[in-house]
């Protein structure tokens, strides 16, 4: 297996990847790597080249230039070995509508060469993992979008792949289904799978991913940790403090803290958006200041607006 820039084992290594649809270039020398057992977000606006990259990694498209290695295997030449180790979930259903949930998983398990007890166990475990055991006799065409995505995920996992390639899995899901899907992905990460997930909304992936690659118009704009994105917008960290109710002394306490650069009250809410210099203070000091001022803390989180700002700065406006 190849290594990432920080020396860890790279599950995916992409170098100078190029692909064009007739005369329209989709990828122009894309390069990034994905470390083992992490959740890696692949973010970009519509038409950035996310799906093309995913399809190349999934061996459905052959790269026209450059190289894509999955577990050190070239996706162009050793596609069958790659396919055994990856699970791909496309951005559409890709499921047989006339089958029941069980038949569908049983079919794909058999197609991947699983026999007898191994197949039974795999199908049973996946039905449990995706919480679909109660719907195993339901027809696929009767499932809701959220259920369909769970089944699609189960299908991609049926042969126990080490790498999961997910193309916008949360697209079209309601908030509850999104949260449930996120929980399943976290569970998969804990099980030792590497998850490569694409989305066009960076803030959606910020909490879930360990690392992220931002792509725009076929060019990688950023690849690294999510925290590293903050440094792109300056040296300052940005957080949101939300109190149970309005409490002006808290704002004063925060403004008086060394290293805090600005405190802005969010209009119509009992929340404060603050920026601070990491070298002079930290989140512990901020929390302490809030509690000592008598404020009743409701939540304390990183400001995703910063990620959105980073995303906007990295990507170009307009349609590609």
């Amino acid at each position: 297996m190849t290594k990432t820039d920080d020396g860890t084992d790279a599950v995916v290594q992409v170098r100078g990847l190029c692909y064009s649809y007739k005369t329209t270039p989709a990828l122009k020398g894309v390069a990034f790597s994905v470390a083992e057992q992490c959740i890696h977000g692949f973010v970009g606006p519509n038409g950035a080249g996310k799906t093309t990259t995913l399809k190349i990694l999934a061996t459905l498209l052959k790269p026209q230039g450059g190289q894509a290695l999955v577990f050190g295997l070239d996706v162009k030449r050793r596609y069958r070995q790659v396919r055994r180790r990856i699970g791909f979930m496309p951005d559409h259903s890709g499921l047989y509508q006339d089958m029941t949930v069980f038949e569908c998983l049983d079919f794909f398990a058999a197609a991947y060469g699983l026999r007898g007890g191994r197949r039974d166990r795999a199908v049973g475990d996946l039905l449990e993992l995706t919480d679909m055991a109660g719907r195993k006799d339901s027809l696929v065409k009767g499932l809701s979008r959220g259920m369909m995505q769970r089944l699609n995920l189960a299908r991609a996992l049926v042969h126990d792949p080490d790498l999961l390639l997910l193309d916008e899995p949360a697209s079209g899901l309601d908030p509850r289904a999104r949260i449930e899907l996120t929980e399943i992905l976290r569970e998969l990460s804990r099980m030792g799978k590497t998850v490569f997930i694409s989305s066009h909304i960076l803030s959606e992936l910020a909490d879930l991913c360990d690392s992220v690659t931002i792509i725009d118009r076929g060019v990688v704009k950023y690849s690294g940790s999510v925290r590293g994105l903050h440094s792109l917008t300056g040296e300052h960290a940005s957080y949101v403090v939300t109190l149970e109710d309005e409490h002006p002394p808290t704002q004063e306490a925060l403004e008086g803290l060394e290293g805090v650069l600005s405190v802005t009250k969010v209009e119509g809410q009992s929340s404060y958006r603050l920026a601070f210099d990491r070298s002079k203070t930290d989140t512990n000091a901020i929390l302490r200041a809030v509690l000592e001022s008598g404020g009743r803390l409701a939540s304390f989180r990183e400001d995703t607006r910063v990620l959105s700002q980073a995303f906007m700065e990295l990507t170009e406006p307009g349609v590609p």
Partner: protein
Amino acid sequence: MNVALTPFLRRSLRTHCRAGKTYLIRGGMLLAMLASVASAQVTARFIGAPGLVLFSSIVWISAFLICLGGPAYFASIITEEKEQMTLGLLKMTGLRPVSILLGKSTSQMLGAIALLLVQLPFTVLSITLGGVSLPQVTAAYLALVAHLVFVTNLGLVCSVVCRRSRRAATLTVVLLLAFYFVPPLAAAVLGTTPGGLLDWAQQASVFARRRAVLTTGFSGSAVGFQVLSNLALGAFFFVLAWAGFERFTRTVEVPAARRARALRRTWGLRLFGPGRAWKNALAWKDFHFMVGGKGMLLLKFILYGLLLGGIARAVDPLGVSMNAEEFGAMAIQLMLFIGFIEVTLCSSRVFGTERKWGTLSSVMILPKRTWQIAYAKVAGCLLALLPTLAWFCVGVGLAGDDFFEGLAWFFSEPFAYYAILQVVFFWHLVAYFSLVLRRGGLLLAFAVCLFGNWLSLVVFFLLGEWAAAGGLILALLGLMAFVHYRILRRLELLAAAE
């Protein structure tokens, strides 16, 4: 009345201009015309009147094309809007049903008339060559246009009633077949009297009208009964489509989460259910979910048996009593025909359905080579032939030595191998076109093979029997390998494009 013909016509023209297949079809039509010219030149040496021969084949090709391509082309007038979920949007624009129906059907019909215009220089040529008069040309084209109006509006009704284009096209074909074949069959069985209902029904056929118009010395009216009846039927079907439009397009149909009725009935029994996936999972899937599974096999076995028994009994009252050998020969021929139809249908569905369902990417990502995936699917579909094969074997058993003698004679003919290869090539083409075209693949494959046959006749005359057969077999093998390769490449491309 806001007929709104212009936007539909403009859209139709734009779509046709952008689609490469429009030019292919018109090019194909042109080739067929050139073939007609060549054929007229050869035929005229023996029977004279080259103009009449040429015009006769032009009219025949047009009538045949309308019958064969019309159902696929016109039966999607409204269903394509249903499938693309745009019918609701059209209705929201405030257009009246009659405007939508008239606008869409007229624009489609004008597209078909454009195909007839391709023939105009050849029609002029046929008049120049002699043997055909202007009244004949006028009468023939009026007959064709009336026939076109009839088929368009029949397709329109089916398109309004059905939810899917495929189903609408099938219904149109069935109704057209009934229109053309029931009256002559009924007349053959019941007898017919001039001026009676069956006689009128037969005269409404464009093929009957073609025969009458193209008789030497035709002096009848340009507007015959066929023209009037076809126009009247066209108007009737339009009114029918208008009357049923609101009722059949009121709701956007969400497919119910239930299996087809036949599958529900048979799969309720454990024996007929799909059970667990086989080792060859793709074959299992296609056998159970595409061609109906074990229940369908049993059903077909019983139906074919009843059909054979029914034919044997039906000829008995006519004084033709069948012995075992004759029954066997009939079973062999019928099963060969049914087998051909079944494989053709399987060819059009085996890859086309994966494309329609959007499941190609899930299948093509399996750790197998593309040809392994393709063959596994074909194997699953071919299992549907088991009842046909069983009755064929029964036929062979009953026919005994006659069958083997017939087989030896058949293979002693140089063109036997070519004929078999051509059938296999046809199936390849059907499968390929199902991956390239949204509809009309079967028709195009048929047209290509017809044209190929005409070419092979030319080769036959030029080279002689054995040399021609050898050369054509080699050419067919090469073409088959090419189409084979293209199918596999197309599967990969479509999977990547999903």
